């Protein structure tokens, strides 16, 4: 028995122009993890490894307690995977697709599928090629949700959706978590979606995990300090300070280890702390990526 939905240990995968490097991650059941990274960071590669669509060169991958890729057949009954490049049959109706998926997966929940049709405002007689982008995304999600998989792997599920469709999707994702044995991993550029529904947040850049923690810890530990510095004075460097930018008498300090002591330390060093600002997840993400790139370049 395990209560981890996802367990990655030292996972690497090398391509000619890109490498996923030594990735270790865990996601407990009952939680949502948001995977955030710039384009080409390795988000899709990571999700495809979890789904065994590609196989890691090195490292251990366990999904719902199953070792991947060896036990992928057993695991996949319980995984729902949705990605942007997933294609449905253009000439098939939504109803045809529903019967097709239901014929494969015994876990198909027909009443729930009907509920989702209503909530998403879709009809079974609609041909896929007549659907808008948002409707197609919702149809794909419906086909996956109605199987009631325990683990949802979603690659950019909200990209290109209008605000209403995005809201509908987030509502359904949260609803999945009524069952504490289920879990969701989703990647997104939209830090607002991630900040709202994720319990765990993982930042990835250039094939490496640069930070991973629960959301509240992220939000609590990052701060921007606005300081006034006496003329000709260089700010001392303290642990947990990620960036300092100074112009004239005003300095902005970004930290990932905020505490009252840090404020006092700057005060004792002769600077006046004028303001301590919280940061949005987007600001934290950008600061994190820039700091990690600077560190790797030095």
């Amino acid at each position: 028995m395990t209560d981890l939905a996802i367990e990655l240990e030292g996972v690497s995968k090398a391509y000619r122009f890109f490498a996923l490097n030594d990735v270790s991650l865990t996601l407990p059941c009952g939680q949502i993890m948001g995977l955030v990274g710039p384009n080409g960071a390795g988000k899709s590669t990571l999700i495809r490894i979890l789904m065994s669509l590609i196989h890691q060169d090195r490292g251990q991958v366990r999904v719902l307690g199953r070792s991947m890729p060896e036990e992928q057949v057993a695991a996949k009954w319980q995984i729902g995977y949705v990605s942007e490049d997933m294609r449905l049959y253009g000439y098939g109706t939504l109803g045809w697709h529903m019967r097709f998926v239901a014929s494969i997966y015994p876990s198909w929940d027909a009443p729930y599928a009907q509920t989702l049709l209503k909530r998403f405002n879709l009809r079974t007689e609609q041909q896929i090629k007549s659907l808008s982008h948002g409707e197609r995304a919702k149809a794909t999600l419906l086909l996956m949700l109605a199987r009631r998989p325990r683990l949802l792997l979603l690659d950019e599920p909200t990209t290109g959706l209008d605000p209403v469709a995005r809201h509908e999707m987030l509502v359904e994702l949260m609803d999945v978590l009524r069952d504490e044995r289920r879990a969701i991993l989703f990647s997104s550029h939209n830090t607002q979606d991630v900040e709202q529904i994720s319990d765990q947040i993982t930042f990835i850049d250039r094939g490496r995990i640069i930070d991973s923690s629960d959301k509240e810890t992220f939000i609590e530990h990052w701060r921007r300090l606005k300081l006034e510095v006496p003329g000709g004075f260089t700010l001392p460097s303290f642990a947990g300070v990620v960036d300092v930018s100074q112009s004239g008498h005003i300095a902005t300090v970004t930290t990932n280890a905020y505490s009252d002591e840090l404020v006092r330390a700057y005060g004792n060093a002769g600077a006046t702390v004028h303001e301590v600002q919280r940061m949005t997840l987007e600001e934290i993400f950008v600061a994190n990526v820039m700091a990690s790139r600077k560190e790797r370049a030095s």
Partner: protein
Amino acid sequence: MHSYVTISQADRRPMYLQIIEQIRRRIAVGDWKAGDELPSIRALAISTQVSVITVKRAYLELEREGVIVTRQGKASFVAEQVDLSSQLRREELDQHLAAAAQIGRELALTAEELIERMRAQMTEGGEKS
């Protein structure tokens, strides 16, 4: 299911603080009375579309303040001793006022100027709600 709490993206305070404030208000206006059971953390998270961990944080904070109590396991209730919570809230307010006074001194403001600024804040806050 209707929502007990609404999160505003335009509100710059973190989401757990928004949840805390709205639960306090529910109790203050008498919607939730002493001894009433609160929605479970997971149920509130789902109805608000906010992560479980954020709601958990809000409940822990409310528990620390004595506004709610959590009995064995999972169910949380509005505390019987509401006075205790207002006491803690007053202490918290005093801390913020002390910090404001400190900044006031740094900016060489007189007590009157500081009070005037406080009055402006109160008016602004009143218009918002």
